[in-house]
């Protein structure tokens, strides 16, 4: 399977984490000439990452790719079998995406210069991110995984969201974004050691650090 995109994209990271947990073979590729070439747009009209090519099947949008991987490779499911458990896992995923990652990315765009520096906007995003972390703290288990014992779709979403939140917070004066959120804090300490997440997290943190210090 080919995954088009960069491991630094939190959306791509979800797919990588799912593949790592499930033990699927994949190669991570940046499309030649970027994502707006006619060749790439023919695969994905939105010109975005991640885009997955699995045999002749092309799937994009991480929210679509993860359930696809589970349907296609039913071993080591990341979506729990019971409706209630699946609901909980998906809820943690959605909370991470909408209420933690979105404001964290808003902050990140200002840090790397993709958005103009705007103190009022940063303050608002920071408050939203703190709200999101509080909500997440209410739903997440303190480990070893986000829903408890097993690695699920929730972990695929929480990990990149937290990597961005913990990197962006300190730049805007929030020294420890996990302070006062004990479940999230314990979770992050535990998931770092998980075999599906360890390599990805170590590598991503390293790249983030070097990019941030180069600014």
């Amino acid at each position, binding site marked *: 399977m080919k995954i088009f995109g960069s491991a630094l994209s939190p959306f791509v990271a979800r797919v990588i984490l799912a593949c790592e947990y499930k033990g699927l073979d994949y190669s991570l590729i940046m499309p030649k000439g970027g994502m707006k070439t006619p060749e790439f747009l023919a695969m994905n009209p939105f010109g975005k990452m991640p885009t997955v090519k699995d045999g002749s099947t092309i799937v994009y949008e991480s929210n679509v790719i993860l359930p*696809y991987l589970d349907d296609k490779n039913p071993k080591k499911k990341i979506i729990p079998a019971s409706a209630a458990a699946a609901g909980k896992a998906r809820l943690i995923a*959605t909370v991470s995406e909408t209420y933690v990652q979105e404001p964290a990315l808003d902050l990140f765009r200002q840090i790397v210069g993709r958005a103009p520096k705007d103190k009022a906007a940063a303050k608002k995003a920071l408050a939203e991110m703190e709200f999101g972390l509080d909500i997440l703290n209410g739903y997440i288990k303190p480990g070893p995984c986000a829903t408890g014992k097993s690695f699920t779709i929730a972990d695929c979403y929480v990990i990149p969201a937290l990597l961005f939140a913990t990197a962006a917070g300190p730049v805007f004066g929030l020294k420890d974004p996990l302070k006062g959120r004990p479940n999230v804090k314990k979770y992050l300490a535990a998931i770092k050691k998980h075999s599906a997440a360890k390599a990805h997290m170590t590598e991503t943190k390293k790249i983030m650090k070097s990019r941030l210090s180069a600014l």
Partner: protein
Amino acid sequence: MKVYGAILSPYVCRVLLALRHKGVKHDVLMPEGGMKTPEFLALNPMAKMPTIKDGTTVLPESSVIVEYIESKYPKKAIIPGTAKGAATARLIATVSDQYIQRAISPLLKQRNAKPRDKAAVKASLAGVQHGLSILDGYLVSGGPWAMGKRFTIADCYALPALYFVNLITPLFGVKDPFAGHKKVKKYWAAVKRDALTKQAMKEMKAMAKQWFGI
């Protein structure tokens, strides 16, 4: 099952379409005293609709709820059985959500703005057209539903998104928002004929008049 919310919310509409299609018994209610009461915040700390309570299971977020409904009440499935079919249905749902519904929402705010932010309106209308052209590429020819003969999760998302495009864009001078999108146009005509979707749109229309005067 209890569903908190109102059908005019496109997010609530998705959930109600799934439940009605499957014939799952449910009550729709607005939380007493609004969504910021301690009682409601205990159900949904994000204080949003829809939120459902099904026995002891409480879930917010429409995307989570619709998948839950499918998993808990598998009869009259709304997600195709093959990995590829399911991915296509979910992709149409995502396109409707991310690229049509999201593009139309800023227009609702600009409706009564004085003066209107012309650049924002232009960007929104262009975004809607881009989303519609992508949707047009995915709809199955011959319909009547987005994926063909059967009603799916794709319809739960596409229908409210198109309803809002049809409701809002004419207020900004667009005569026929579906012009140039042949399959979308046919799809829209078909959903207006179907009993389930016709009824939902009738209820949305009445509520839009009451809430927004449009």
